[in-house]
């Protein structure tokens, strides 16, 4: 990593601010923010359905949530490309578009929010909700005032992990995005390309940025964990 600093600050800056690097970083950042937001909603909804709902096959669904952790990313990318690519059996072709990048990232980040929210929801005492409901609160008000504040730290740390994962993701994106510079090339694919063409300075510069983003996210999660459990050691 120190390679990035070898040419001094100015060569680092030149490498990071080259139009292609900026485009790749911008794409990674915007798509990852989007992925984080979508996961906050869908992840919480899935966790809710797994904990509070009862239906046949629920435990199977519960096991399947971890599939993106178990499935190699390159296979994840290939599966999406097969269903939503040029030879799609359902007639949807998003290959080599930004939508494809978004879908690949949604696939690999799916478990994060579900798996952080689920245990908190399980532990959550339903008496508070019943009390609120008996005092005349509608079900949305109960969710917003009682459930949501309790889940928020878990949602945030799940979202942060999903964001960190999304911004550095490589395997699942590499086949389906087509890696078109300025269009569908994400940061890690940009780095990979620069390594292949022996441009260590550019690769190292963007790597350092990604490294700092990851570290920042991890420290934020650590602080969040500390904050959420601040009353536990009373």
């Amino acid at each position, binding site marked *: *990593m*120190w*390679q990035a600093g070898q040419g001094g600050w100015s060569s680092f800056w030149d490498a990071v601010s080259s139009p292609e690097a900026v485009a790749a970083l911008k794409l990674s950042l915007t798509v990852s923010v989007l992925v984080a937001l979508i996961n906050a909603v*869908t992840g919480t*909804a*899935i966790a*809710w*359905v797994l904990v509070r*709902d009862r*239906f046949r096959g629920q435990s199977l*669904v519960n*096991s*399947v*949530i*971890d*599939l993106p*952790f*178990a*499935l*190699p*990313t*390159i*296979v*994840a990318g*290939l*599966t999406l490309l*097969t*269903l*939503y690519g040029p030879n799609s*059996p359902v007639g949807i072709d998003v290959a080599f578009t930004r939508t494809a990048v978004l879908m690949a990232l*949604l*696939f690999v980040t*799916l478990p994060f929010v579900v798996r952080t929210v689920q245990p908190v929801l399980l532990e959550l005492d339903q008496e508070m909700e019943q009390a609120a409901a008996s005092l005349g609160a509608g079900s949305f008000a109960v969710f917003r005032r009682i459930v949501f504040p309790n889940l928020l730290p878990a949602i945030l740390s799940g979202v942060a*992990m999903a964001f*960190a*994962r999304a*911004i*550095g*993701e*490589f*395997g699942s994106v*590499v*086949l389906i995005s087509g890696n078109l510079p300025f269009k569908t090339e994400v940061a*890690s*694919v940009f*780095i*990979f390309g620069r*390594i292949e063409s022996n441009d260590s300075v550019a*690769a*190292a510069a963007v*790597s350092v940025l*990604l*490294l700092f983003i*990851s*570290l920042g996210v*991890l*420290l934020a*999660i*650590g602080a969040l964990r*500390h904050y959420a459990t601040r009353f536990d050691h009373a």
Partner: protein
Amino acid sequence: MRRYGLRTFALGYLVVILLAPVAVIFYRAFEHGFWPAWHAVTTPDAKHAFLLTIELALIAVPLNTVFGVIMALLIVRHRFPGVGFVNAVVDLPLALSPVVVGFSLLLLYGRQGWFGHWLIAHGYRVVFAMPGMVLATIFVSLPFVVREVVPVLREIGTDQEAAASTLGSSGWQTFRRITLPAIRWAVGYGVVLTTARALGEFGAVSVVSGRIVGQTETLTIHVQAAYEGFDLVGAYAASVVLALLAVATLVLMTLLKPKEETR
């Protein structure tokens, strides 16, 4: 009614993003029957890639298991300055792009790397060879055992360990008789996750291996190479092998999890 709405939304999302794509890959692999797929995964290159992947996992998983347990003990049982920082940094492989991981190994051990120059001069090849791939696999699968064991260690507390040592048992005896039995399910769960990650690693290994067919090509890299070489059956068939390994992982995770919860 709203309950069904939410259920439909959550399950529908799972089907569109997760289940339908994975189902299609099985369909595509066996579209022309079982034997073309079988022949595609038993070519010498595919077999070599498969064995190499297994070999990498066999080296990385035991090392990470031992390291993970030691690290978890350090984080939970010892107070030292910076323990919070160490705790956060252990997660780094989860958050860091695998390409960046591979690239940093390249910068350290490559031809122009810090150690690489000396290593190559003395006849050791790390990058584009087995040692580099082992390092990459170890790096990316590092956090899982630690992550699973830390909360369990916190929960069991130190009472029993303290009792054992007042009764005269040595540190190693206490660990083997008291601590290890208490954390064994968590270790097992962590090992399953570590194995899955090691078998499926792509980005970091892709950078450090050089992707030489029949030499440093792992099964995941073989999938990409086959797809890009228009060998679709080969790519799908190898993917099915990896997907089956993933399903086996899920089954093991499900089997290990309830035991851990009812402990």
